[in-house]
């Protein structure tokens, strides 16, 4: 009889402790899932641009961005080997590790594609926190199109953004007359460690001089890398 009681007590506490353990595991798993923090991105990048009937330009580089220190580094290999570092109020150009040019202004790295990708604000093109107001949201097949109206007091045009599969697909800018002045497509998203990054951005701008085409391609994307510290913390002579 006594043995039965002891057995019951042991089983009771064992069951209870298992339940508590289960809860703890659930809490920890949830914390690790929701607490996923994207703070670094590096990628090969190429920017091809051409004015219709005019000269083209090509930039080939490797880009490093650290969100925590807000430092953006372009290690350019073409057209000429140089390193661009954008940090705080400075935009610096280094050639052979020596500071070649230093311009100052307000920091703007937070407005770049890389920052927006890391902090998840790319989907609305930053318009949600701007004076633009949503006029309508419509669905066309798998595309959700949002029309953004500018403030009435300003003579600006509408901006249309579209999302496919909960990711930004396109941005259209119009002038105040309702004519399209720019089309951008964000495509071929790559899922890198749970972060969606567009690997091809195509842009057409409609100007009085003709159309301007630009294709930005990202490849070999790495998230939260702990390698290449010298590039993430680039300074004169560090490379």
């Amino acid at each position, binding site marked *: 009889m006594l043995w039965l009681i002891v057995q019951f007590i042991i089983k009771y506490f064992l069951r209870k402790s298992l339940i508590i353990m289960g809860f703890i595991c659930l809490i920890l798993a949830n914390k690790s899932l929701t607490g996923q923090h994207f703070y670094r991105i590096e990628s090969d990048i190429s*920017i*091809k*641009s*051409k*004015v*219709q009937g*005019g*000269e*083209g*330009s*090509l*930039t*080939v580089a490797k880009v490093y961005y650290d969100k925590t220190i807000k430092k953006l580094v372009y290690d*350019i*290999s*073409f*057209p*000429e*080997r140089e390193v661009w570092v954008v940090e705080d109020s400075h*935009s610096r150009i280094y050639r052979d590790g020596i500071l070649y040019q230093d*311009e100052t*202004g*307000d920091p*703007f790295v*937070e*407005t770049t*594609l890389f920052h927006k990708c890391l902090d998840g604000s790319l989907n609305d093109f*930053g318009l949600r*926190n*701007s*004076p633009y107001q949503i006029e309508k949201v*419509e*669905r*066309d*097949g798998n*595309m959700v*199109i949002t029309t953004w109206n500018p403030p009435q007091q*300003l*003579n*600006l045009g509408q901006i*249309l953004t*579209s999302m496919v599969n909960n990711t930004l*697909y*396109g941005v*259209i*800018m119009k*002038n*105040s007359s309702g004519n399209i*002045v*720019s*089309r951008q*497509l964000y495509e071929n998203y790559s899922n890198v460690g749970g972060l969606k990054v567009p690997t091809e951005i*195509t842009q*057409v*701008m409609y100007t009085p*001089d003709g159309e*301007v*085409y*630009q*294709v930005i391609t990202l490849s070999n994307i790495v998230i939260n890398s702990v390698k290449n510290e010298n590039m993430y913390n680039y300074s004169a002579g560090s490379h």
Partner: protein
Amino acid sequence: MVINYQTHEAETTVKQSFLIDLSELLTIILKSMKRIILLFAVLFYLASGAFAGSKELFSIDKEMIRSELSGLSDLENYVKVSNATFSNLKSENNALVANVSGNNFTSLTSMGDPPLGISSFIWGFCFGVPGLAVVYIVTEDSDETKKALWGCVAGTAVSAIIYLVYVNALVNSTVYY
């Protein structure tokens, strides 16, 4: 008994006429339903036709762009393998750089126009950081971005002044009872 028979016959007649009325009513309802369904189908078709135009706005002739940038793609492939710079290729009179500028992001900076023809300063002044983003993304021009940055600073300063004036006015207009 006769009376009962007559009553039963009358009841049957009433029932039959009720059933006829009911069937007629159902027929009318079904006919109306048909019309309503048809009307909805037509409306849906028209509406989907209207939306189709919105999706079309987001299409770009990528084949044409690929063809326009094919020379640059060839150059990109060559550069990635050879590690050559623009000056190297230019000194060799390489045909790949025949119609290529040696500057970074030149195509957009060469336009020299701010986004939507609106001053970059205004973009920064009125929209702050998102305005700055628009200028930076659209123009890729450091000068235009700089103007937008100054606009952003000026806008912030003006907002701060207005806020201080407003707070001051509030403090001065406080009524004590």
